[in-house]
Structure formats: structure tokens, C-alpha cells
């Protein structure tokens, strides 16, 4: 039977993983009609927006502001990168694992610096874990067991909207059958946020006092008495009460956010927090975890770690990976004006960085690979639009607790995926390095 004009092609795709944040909900139901997303069920407002507005603001392929084909853009990008002496590859959060994997291969090939958005987000958390370790767990442990949940310097109500219902506040699990009734939730921050509304208690502290507070709590935990009447603007007795709640919980967890990583003290705040929560294990089960994740930033840290040994701020200029935050981290590379070309993939560097860093990026050849127009694509030398990972390109994303989940392709895109663009740039750079004759590189054979 011939299909009559006007019959709608309707697809309902279940178990879709949301690419927006590190909660990585994998229960979305997406309705697609004639190749367009019509409805998204189960998603929070952030996730829903990501799907419903994915057609808006698409980038277009261009070189120095003039329209070009994707092929021309890829050639131009490869040329910039092959010629660069000290290039930077940066961004990489709002994409999927295979593209991230390829970005590191490219960095290895051209001896680039490679860094991702953790660098300006939770990198201090990673450094703190490198310093003292961490006592942590997957979110399902919190769902099944936690009877005390502390949100410190983070605001899941607005930043990770489904974290509370899926994992940490109202979620019902094996030993928490009554959900919220089986849990005490405490919010600590410098100002009340919407998260305070879901908490049983809110403790308002003075800005930049976190390190002092964690240190005081550690002292109290060890049985020392403190001279001060208050720490961080809160009476010692209130801290003693909090500590008693922590010690008497059966399973406690402290979630932290950028309120700790990007304020005074930075990674030392987290070192103090992690040491406190580790030491609480003398009394009960106590865990801590960062509220990670714009997009798949956790996946990038994972694959960078397994391929190079380091989670961020990696330099390949000597032919092997080196790690030095403060030298090879994006902020420092740009602020010192060191890099001479940049590939920015799946992130808006210009839109988010301070003026001085953005200024250096504007002054060098820059390639932007992104589904959408941004402050970065506006000024990039080469713009390569791609299919949005998790919507128009499949792949894999990591949840904030390092659990990998498959992202489905729900609609088509006229543009190639991030992975494909990187593969083609790599092939082109390899061909150029082989003398420009386009011959494929010999696998391994050439020794010495």
C-alpha cells in the first residue's frame, strides 16, 4: 500500500539518556514526529529544553566568517593544527565518549595541550582526591541506604533537578522504603537557595569559611574543645549538633559543589572535607561525592585518565603525557598567552572565560566544533557544525559517580558527529605529516 501524503511518521523512543548534566537520567521518553522532537517525558526542565530546542541556533560551516563546506572546514582545521607549535584542545564536556577518545588521539598526534571544562569547575576536587583519596559510593548506595544527606555549597534543586528524586532525597530504596521520611537532609551554603526548601535544616555560613569549618569539625571529632564561640558565623554548639548527627547516622553522605571548589581555599577546602568524611568512618559509614557534571565532563576525565594517566591539564608536547595544573591548565595557558592555535569542541570558551583569556583566544587561529552558535563560534577562524551528542548522535556518557550509560541518537542531523569530524581531522593531519601526499600512515612499522 502506498503511503499517502500527510501520514505522520511517529516514533516513541524509551530509555533515552539525557546529555545535559551529571545526573545522567536514562529514563527519558522522546516522541519524534517526521524527524522532529515533539515531546520529552520524564526530563527535568533543563533536560527538556535541551531536547525541545535542539533545532535552534545551529552553527553553520564557515572559514574566516565566509560560508564553506564541511570538507573545506576540515582541511582548514587540519592545516591550522598541523602547523601549530603549541596548540590547545579544549572543551569536550557536551559530547560523547568516542569523540573524547578521538580528541586525545589528536592531541597525542600533534603534541597538544588538552584540557576540559573540569579545569574551571571541579578540577580542585580531582586534585583533592589525588591528595588524600575519598570515601565515596555510587548514587544507588545513597538511594538504598543514606539516612543523612548533606548538600554543601551546591544547589541540586536548580543545577541537578532530578538528583533529589532519583537518588538522594525522596528516592525510595532497599533500606529507605519511606524515601524522604527515612532521611535527614541538611543544606549548608552562604545563602539560602531553593535546595534549602527541600532540606530539614539549613545552615548559613560566612563566605570563604569552609576550610575553617571542616577543620573545626575534624578537631571536634577528635575530641578537642575549641576556644571560639563560633566558626564561619555559626555557633560551635550548632556544629557539635551537626557532628552528632553525622556520627549517629547509619549511612551519611556529603555532596559538595562549586561553592567549595571555586572559592578561597579551592582544593584545600575539599581536602579538609574529604579528610573529615574519611575520619567519620571510625564511627559510622560516611561518604562524600562531588555534584559533577555539565554534560559528559566526567567521561572526558575518565578517558583522559585511562589514555594518559591524568584527569585534566595534560601536555603532550614532549611526545608523552605530562600533568601540571597551573601550567597546562587552560586558564594558565591562555592567560600566559602560550598557545598558538586552539581547537574548542563542545564548549563555549569565549563566552565563559575572563576577558584576558578570551582575548588571547581571539588573537590565534581557532577552530570551533559545536552544534550551536556561541560566543566562541562567532570569532572562530573555522567553524564546524556537528550533530548534537545525545540527540542527533549516539555514544556514551558518564554519570557523576563514573557509571557509563549509552546515549541514543533520536533524530538525524545534516552534520557529521563530533567523532567523525575529529577522525577526519586526524586522517588529514596524518596525511600532511607524511609529506602531504595523502598516503596513509604506516601502522607502527617505522622504527627509530
Amino acid at each position, binding site marked *: 500500500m502506498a503511503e499517502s501524503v500527510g501520514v505522520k511518521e511517529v516514533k516513541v523512543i*524509551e*530509555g533515552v*539518556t539525557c546529555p545535559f548534566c551529571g545526573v545522567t537520567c*536514562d529514563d527519558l521518553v522522546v516522541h519524534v514526529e517526521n524527524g522532529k522532537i515533539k515531546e520529552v517525558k520524564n526530563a527535568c526542565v533543563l533536560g527538556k529544553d535541551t531536547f525541545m530546542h535542539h533545532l535552534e541556533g545551529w552553527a553553520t560551516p564557515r572559514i574566516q566568517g565566509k560560508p564553506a563546506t564541511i570538507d573545506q572546514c576540515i582541511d582548514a582545521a587540519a592545516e591550522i593544527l598541523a602547523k601549530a607549535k603549541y596548540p590547545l584542545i579544549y572543551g569536550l564536556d557536551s559530547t560523547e*565518549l568516542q569523540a573524547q577518545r578521538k580528541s586525545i*588521539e589528536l592531541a*597525542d*598526534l600533534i603534541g597538544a595541550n588538552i584540557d576540559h571544562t573540569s579545569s574551571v569547575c571541579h578540577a580542585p576536587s580531582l586534585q583533592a*582526591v*589525588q*591528595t*588524600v*583519596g*575519598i570515601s*565515596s*559510593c*555510587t*548514587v*544507588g*548506595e545513597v*538511594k*538504598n*541506604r543514606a539516612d543523612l544527606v548533606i548538600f554543601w555549597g551546591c544547589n541540586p534543586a536548580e543545577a541537578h533537578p532530578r538528583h533529589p528524586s*532519583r*537518588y538522594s532525597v525522596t528516592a525510595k*530504596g*532497599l*533500606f529507605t522504603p519511606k524515601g524522604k521520611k527515612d532521611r535527614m537532609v541538611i543544606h549548608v551554603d552562604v545563602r539560602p537557595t531553593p535546595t534549602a526548601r527541600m532540606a530539614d535544616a539549613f545552615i548559613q555560613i560566612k563566605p570563604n569559611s569552609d576550610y575553617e569549618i571542616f577543620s573545626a569539625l575534624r578537631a571536634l571529632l577528635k575530641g578537642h574543645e575549641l576556644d571560639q564561640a563560633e566558626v564561619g558565623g555559626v555557633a560551635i554548639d550548632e556544629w557539635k549538633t551537626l557532628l552528632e548527627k553525622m556520627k549517629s547516622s547509619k*549511612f551519611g553522605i556529603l555532596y559538595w559543589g562549586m561553592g567549595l571548589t571555586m572559592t578561597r581555599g579551592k582544593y584545600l577546602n575539599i581536602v579538609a572535607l574529604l579528610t573529615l568524611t*574519611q575520619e567519620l*568512618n571510625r564511627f*559510622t*559509614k560516611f*561518604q562524600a561525592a562531588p555534584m559533577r557534571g555539565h554534560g559528559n565532563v566526567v567521561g572526558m576525565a*575518565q*578517558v583522559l585518565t*585511562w*589514555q*594518559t*594517566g*591524568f*584527569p585534566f591539564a595534560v601536555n*603532550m608536547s*614532549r*611526545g*608523552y*603525557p605530562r*600533568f601540571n595544573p597551573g601550567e597546562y591548565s587552560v586558564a594558565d595557558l591562555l592567560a600566559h598567552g602560550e598557545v598558538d592555535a586552539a581547537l574548542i569542541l563542545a564548549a563555549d570558551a569565549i563566552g565563559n572565560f575572563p576577558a584576558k583569556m578570551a582575548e588571547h583566544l581571539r588573537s590565534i587561529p581557532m577552530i570551533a566544533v559545536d552544534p550551536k552558535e556561541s560566543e566562541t563560534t562567532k570569532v572562530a577562524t573555522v567553524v564546524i557544525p556537528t550533530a548534537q551528542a545525545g540527540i542527533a548522535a549516539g555514544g*556514551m556518557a558518564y554519570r557523576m559517580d*563514573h*557509571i*557509563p*550509560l549509552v546515549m541514543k541518537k533520536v533524530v538525524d542531523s545534516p552534520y557529521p558527529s563530533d567523532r567523525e569530524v575529529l577522525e577526519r581531522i586526524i586522517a588529514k593531519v596524518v596525511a600532511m605529516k607524511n609529506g602531504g601526499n595523502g598516503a596513509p*600512515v*604506516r*601502522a*607502527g*612499522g*617505522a*622504527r627509530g
Partner: protein
Amino acid sequence: MGRSLKIVGGEVYDPANGVNGAVREICVQDGKIVESCTGAAEIIEARNLVVMPGGVDIHTHIASPAVNAARGFRPEDHRHGLMSKRPGIRSGVGFTVPSTFATGYLYTKMGYTTVMEAANAPIGVRHTHEELIDIPILDKGIYVLMGNNEFILKYLKAGEMEKVKRYVAWLIRSLKGYGIKLVNPGGVEQWKYGKDVESLDDKVYYFDVTPRQILKALSWANESLGLPHPIHLHANRLGIPNNYLTTLETMHALDGSRLHMAHIQFHSYGGENWGGFCSKAVEIAEYINAHPNVTTDIGQVVFGDATTITADGPWQYRLYKLSKNKWYNQDIEVETGCGIVPYVYREKNYVNAIQWAIGLELFLLIRDPWRVFLSTDHPNGGPFIFYPWIIKLLMDKTFRAEMLKRVHKRVLSDTTLPKLDREYTLSEIAIISRAGPARALGLQHKGHLGIGADADIAIYPKDDDREQMFEHPVCVIKDGETVLQEGEIVGSRDGKTLFVIPPEVGEMDPEFKTEFENYYTIEYENFPIDVEDIPNPEAIPAGAAR
């Protein structure tokens, strides 16, 4: 058509086929060992060289969420072992927890071609497969952690053994796993509220089942599913003085069934406390000698830096308290735990020196080389790159005597090592590092050079310094292609992922999906891994039920 080659003039050690140093010609075609090549074949001259099957590691930790966490939290480890990129070869770093590409190259540089990743939480197996893609050259398989799985505990509590079996088959099939791993059965579940089990008959909180029940149930499920490898067991009480009694009791509990005891060195300790710490290698070896159902790998201690990585959360907490080193803990919903603590084994520390001696005692006291395998429990006892050093210790009693002068003097008085004269032969080394592990894994096409075997071959120089010999193969061939020559990787290629297809024993119950989603945090449909997601899969069929 693949490459044809003939390896001529070499002294061949192929113990699975009874070849013990005879000069034989080995013919290879299309990646397999053949009777003779049909056409013109490339000749590899091996006169005055030793030819062996590629090495097979039955127990190592090279890729998993836990291994990657260890990499990420030990940047200090990655100032060593720098490997530069070359055309076709990726860069890498690392000593106890090397990066993925480096891991593939380092194993190849010792003549190893097949390795088994020994501990994987089910929900993390998808990650492990992704890491394995980036470990070149080697063939790899994954053991799946089941000894503290809350579904299994629940089924056991209800006495539903058939459900245990079906669930085990479902896990292996869904995850493309190779075998069943147990780590401190029951103890890791206890750790989720900060406790451990003290004995085989302690009850696990809420589930009311004992380690003994878990061991027996999973051993029964493994054997009735006909899986090629027996249950792979990290027993209870690892690392603790006097744990040898638990070890003996564990082996006794599974008397008559196939059993692989992992890193048994860590389970052969006597003494009431750390002060009285001593060797019980004699007792353990005696039991194994008398019980042909048991195989074991040693988990030999190597002096220097190590990274301890294990699902045994409670033990890692103890080690963190003992060593005061940094501590990483990650409990995994429904399934298991994970702990990581850096550690340094010191020659002059009496506990470390006795641990070192116990490993060697076990190697030398267990008489049947087909049932004892070379491992350091990498990187728990030390990095795998020290296998050649261990081989030298086993083959050269003069070298052992030199080492005995260096280590803590309690080794002389408190272990039998100074009295042991045995020296391993080359054939015995070929057994403990290739033929034996392949046989225990049920890998019929690995670990030997008979017709039809995979053409995974290592060619070593003859050198009286056995460490030098095994550290510097002249040539390594993987699937018929030369991957290493004169010490350099010359042809990186992708290895295969070996996985077992268990028999059909029925679908999971309809209500399982609901239960799964009640306790996990992902959708039931999103849990299984498609075989299409694995680039080079090789299915190994299960055998008949035992």
C-alpha cells in the same frame, strides 16, 4: 589471506603437547598454528633461541572503573615509565597503574599475549570494555564480581537456587563476561555499613546468609552452567594474620569442586597478630598438593611501589589505617565495593619480607606446576613488569640466596624458604606462565603451539640470567603477525575480547525488571551490553554441566 611464516631452528617449550626443548619447526598461517604452510612462507630464524606460546595471565587488574580511579588518584605513579608516541604507537605513562596503551605494550614486551582482568562490578563492565579497546595487542577477558551481589543474596535467603543460576547466566550473557569472581563473599556487603565478616559462618546483615552459602551456591551455579573457568575466588580475611585457617576452611568447604584460589600468598598467614606474623605456606601447599580440584595463582610480592586495588572494601580500610596512606573507597550499588591504597613493600620490613618469602615458598612447595600460576595480583603485590624477576627467583637458587641476605632476617628463621632447593625448569616456567593458566581458563586455543592454536608466540634469547631472558624477547607474534622485534613494538594491532556464552537456562522472571529498577538507578533495558559495542569479540562456548 593472512601471513604464512615458519619459525625454524628454535628450541620449543610447549608443555601442553609434551615438547620440552626439542628443535621443532613451527608453521603459521592465517593467524593459527598449522601442520605446514600451503604456499611460500616467511622464515623466522630461531637458532639458539627459545620458542614458547605467548604468556597468559590468569589474574591481573589492568582496566576497570577501579583501576582507572587508581590511575587518576596516583599522578605520582605516572612520572615513571614514560613512553613516547611513534607512528602507529600511542604514548603512555605509568609504573604500578600504567595507562592503557602502555599496558598493552608492556605485557607484549615480556612475551605475554592474553590477560584476564580480574575484578569488575557489573554496572562498571561497560566502562571496562571501553578501556580494553585501548589496550592494544593483547586478548582480554573479564571476570564479573558476584560474591556480594544483593540479588544473589536475596535468592539464597529464599533458597531459590535455580534463580541464582539463571541470574548468573543472565549477568555473564548481558555483560560479555568471561567468568565468576568472588571477593570476600559476604564481607563487602557488610562493609556497606562499615563492617566485615569474621568467619565463613557469620551471617550477612539483613540477608541472613553466610559466606559459606555464597561460595557453595556460586560454585554450584558455575559448574552446572559448564563455564570454562571455575569460580575465581578472593577468599575472606585477605591480608590478616592467621587467615590461613579461613583459607583451609574455604578450600575444604568446596572439596571436590573445581576452584581457583586467587593470589593465595595473601591468604597464607599465621600468627595471632602482626607481631607474631608468620608463614603458613607449608600447610596451604600441603592441602593443594593433596587436592587436584584446586588451582591457584600466587600474588607474589615484589619490593618497591605497589597500588592495592580490590573490591575488598573492609580490607582496604584496614590497610589505610595501618599504612596511613591515602585511601579511595567506592561502594557500588547492589553489587560490590572498591578500595584503593598505595603501598610500598620494603625488604627490611619483616611483614613484607615474610610475604615475599611466602609467595616463593608456595611456588616451590606446590608440586604440580599445572595448578600454580605466575601472578603478582598486579598491581597489589607489585607491577606485572617484574614477572621476569620472579622467574629468575624460581629458576636460580643462587639468586634466591643473594636475596635472602638482603631481606629482613626473620625470613631465615620463620619460613622454609632458605631450605628449599628446587629450581624451576624452562618447561615448568612455560607451564606456570602460559600452558597452565590457559588450561585452567578452558582456553583450548591458547597456551600451546599445537595444530589449530592461536599463533601467539614468544621467542626468547638463551640467557643464563633468566630475568634478562624473559624481559627481552627477540620476537613476539600475535595472531600470526609480528608485534615486537628486538625489544620494540613494531606492529600495534587490536586484541580480541574473549567472552563466554552461557547455556540457555531460562529468562529472568517478569518481576525482575521492577526489582532491578527499585534498587538500581538505571533502566533495566540500559544494563546489557550489545556485542556490537565490542570491536573484536570472540565467543567461547560453555561446556557441559559438571
